[in-house]
């Protein structure tokens, strides 16, 4: 009963706080990126202004179903995050994540725009690249803690990263894909440097675009939640460690984003799979052997 109540509180906290935290992180991202490029950068509140502006703009749609899929995407990502922060089964979380990602590609192809359709296919290639790693993350946690459930994983006696360094590195590498950062920002670019215009989100404007942005914020916080699982254990000490860990990952992702040029999809699939096998695969094999 108590567990259920805690779950409800954490899920509610996620739904309310996620956009705020993610907005600030996004602002911070833009400032750090600007500094790396020798610019001053916008105010930390800029992402909030942007999203507000998007919601006030005129919404153009190609057909009726497009908006419906976008809202589906939004709802199901929140459900995914809810499962994670409610402490449910990690595989449940990841499978729901796959299902929700599909709504985004449906929204793209339903416009019949060549640009968005190509973006959608690239999005699929991205999913193809990161899926194995995501599943292996769950496998790793299960092998270390004996449970797939978030609420059990955080009760461990030591942080999972101690036994799962390879899995952690692998996950951080595919996070670049999930965060849509260079070199893997193939399906939808935040920067105006790709041939696909805005790829998968090309035909989304106004409120639709705002919702997509908001969904990404929820998704990002969910992914940081998975990162947190690597650090949290049954001690208060773990909280500052976790926050530090997340900030380090956050900084690394920005660094990679600014240091790399975009690659082709073939390179992405190969790189992601090879990294997955080398880091997570070997890590898990070793775990199995020492068991």
């Amino acid at each position, binding site marked *: 009963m108590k567990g259920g109540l805690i779950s409800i509180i954490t899920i509610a906290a996620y739904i309310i706080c996620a956009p705020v935290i993610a907005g600030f992180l996004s602002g911070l991202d833009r400032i750090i990126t600007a500094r790396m490029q020798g610019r001053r950068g916008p105010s930390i509140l800029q992402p909030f202004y942007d999203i507000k502006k998007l919601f006030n703009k*005129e919404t*153009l749609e190609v057909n009726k179903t497009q908006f419906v899929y976008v*809202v*589906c995407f939004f709802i199901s990502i929140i*459900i995914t995050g809810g499962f994670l922060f409610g402490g449910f089964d990690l595989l449940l979380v990841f499978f729901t994540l796959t299902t929700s990602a*599909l709504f985004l590609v449906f929204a793209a192809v*339903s416009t*019949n725009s060549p640009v968005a359709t190509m973006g*959608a296919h690239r999005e699929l290639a991205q999913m193809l690249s990161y899926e194995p790693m995501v599943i292996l993350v769950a496998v790793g946690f*299960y092998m270390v803690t004996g449970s797939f459930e978030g609420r059990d994983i955080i009760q461990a006696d030591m942080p999972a990263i101690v036994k799962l360094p390879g899995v952690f590195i692998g996950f951080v590498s595919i996070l670049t894909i999930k965060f849509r950062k260079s070199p893997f920002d193939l399906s939808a670019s935040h920067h105006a440097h790709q041939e696909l215009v805005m790829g998968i989100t090309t035909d989304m404007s106004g409120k639709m675009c705002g919702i997509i942005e908001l969904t990404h914020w929820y998704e990002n916080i969910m992914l940081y939640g998975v990162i947190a699982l690597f650090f949290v254990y049954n001690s208060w000490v773990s909280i500052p460690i976790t926050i530090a860990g997340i900030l380090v990952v956050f900084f690394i992702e920005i660094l990679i984003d600014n240091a790399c040029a975009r690659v082709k999809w073939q390179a992405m699939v190969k790189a992601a799979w090879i990294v997955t096998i080398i880091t997570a695969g070997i890590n898990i094999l070793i775990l199995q052997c020492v068991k």
Partner: protein
Amino acid sequence: MGLSNEIMIGSLIFVPFIVALILSFVGNNTVRKVIVYFSAVCIMFLSAAFAISFLINGKTISFMPETEIIDKIMLGGEFFLMGIIIWLSIKYKKLYAAALSIVQTVGLAWLELSGKTEHFKLDHIYCDRLTIVMVLMIGIIGSFICIYAIGYMTDYTHHHTDVKDRRKFFFGMLFVFLGAMFGLVFSSNLIWIYFFWEITSVSSFLLIGYTKTEEAIYNSFRALWMNLLGGVAFAGAIVFAVIKLDVINLSDLIICDNKMLLFPLMLLAVAGLTKSAQLPFSKWLMGAMVAPTPTSALLHSATMVKAGVYLLIRLAPAMQGNSVGYTVALIGGFTFFFSSVRAIVHSDGKKILAYSTVSNLGLITACAGVGAESTVWAAIFLMMFHAISKSLLFQSVGAIENTIGSRDIEDMHGIIRRYPFLAAIVIIGIFGMYLAPFGMLISKWAALKAFIDAGNIILVLFLAFGSATTMFYWTKWLLKIFAWSDKTETRKNQTSIEQCVSLVGHVVLMITLVILYALVSQKFVEPMISEFYGHPVGAVISYTDMIIMSCYVGVIVLIPLLAILATRHVKVTKTNAYMSGINRDKGRKFVDSFGKERDLYLSNWYMLDIMGSRRFLNISTVIAVAGLIIGIAFSIGGAF
């Protein structure tokens, strides 16, 4: 009660054969329709009634120790099958098939006639919970396919005027198939199982060659020789088991405590691998698509290939932790991954389905090969859900083919707008194959957990990568369906009422089973596994998760509804899709670099350059053959 069980089992086996006999004489379409409808419904009710009465009783049934006359008849039957094969292989100059058939039939005839099997006075008929699963699968899905075939074959003969109308033969064969499958799952005696096993091989061969085109004949003979190879292995296993181990019943074989067991076990596993179309034997199932759709649906879902995995699941407890088990598990895992990669490059709907069948059977095979309680639990669920979803998908592709004249997924562009009913059925089928919250996914999840528990990391890796590729090829198909299209096409939806009955029946079955997942596990599958292993076994994934999944079915309906409500009153402006300003005619056309208008056509992505190469295919076959040979060598080494 005992007597009524005997009557029920007897009629489940014999009724299909009798119906087949009647149908092969009925030329009138209406009369045939009535007979097929009536007998399909009868078989369906009979299997359901039998299952219910079994569940109420809850006891394993076995009887019939004295079967001298039936054995003789079966022996005659085996020679009859051999006769058919010899005749057809001479006719089409494929003598190797005849040779394979002669080897196995003569070998077994020698065994029986020399009196080595006479001293066994054991029950020939055996029925436990696994049998019931199979009976329900064959009885319900198989009958639905027969009903579907009525409507489909009318359309088919209408469209394919070049193919000779052999519907008498076709419907006869469908029912022979069902009868043989019932016989196979009810038999306990290996010779009996082998007899029905051969019937399924031969009737699938005849069904694949239905159109008698060159391609059909070529493919049917490929199916025949691969399955006969399995038959030879099966016969070899029987001879070995009888002579060296003094065992004739399957249930006695798997508990036989003798290190020589490994060899017959490996041979039976090879038979199972050929029938369930695992690498390197998967080609025959690809070729089987030349046959009319009901055949594919039958071969891929409820019968044929399921006979293979059925045998493997029966063998599972004996395969746990030995070289045979490792070989089977690795071949299964390998097949799961490689077939799903192969599925990416194809655009022919039925081909994708065929690769997906092989791939999913690979997973079931891997589960059986590991042979732990939890993997068998997952295998049973995978088998059930796969049967329903795959049958549904084949039938819906067949219905689409009859309506739009193509089964290429490129031509299914935007059918959600053109034929919403058909599209919805395909979408449900595809969702059922790989997405939360449907059965295949929950079972895959269980399989993953079971593989980790069993400590088989290689299989975990195969599953992780294979799931990604599986996701890729299904989603690609979904993208085509969800794409936007004009409603310009005016062709009428030609799906007949019989087809709709079957399609909707499948959807209802699938969703009911997902909702009742926890219940089915608790009341049925767990006792089944406990019986297999002789000690209580729990569910692999927690009931909480199963119940979440059941509720999820509601959520997945609720999300779009909520989204529709939320977006209904939002003020939006209609516009055309962005195409750098070169779009014409609302995006149906564009202006090319010469200033001419061209039709816009969006194609899917097949990654041919990486995954489509012949080398890739050859490598996978070579690896599988090598693995199999090593496995056989180990089993011989272990046995002697």
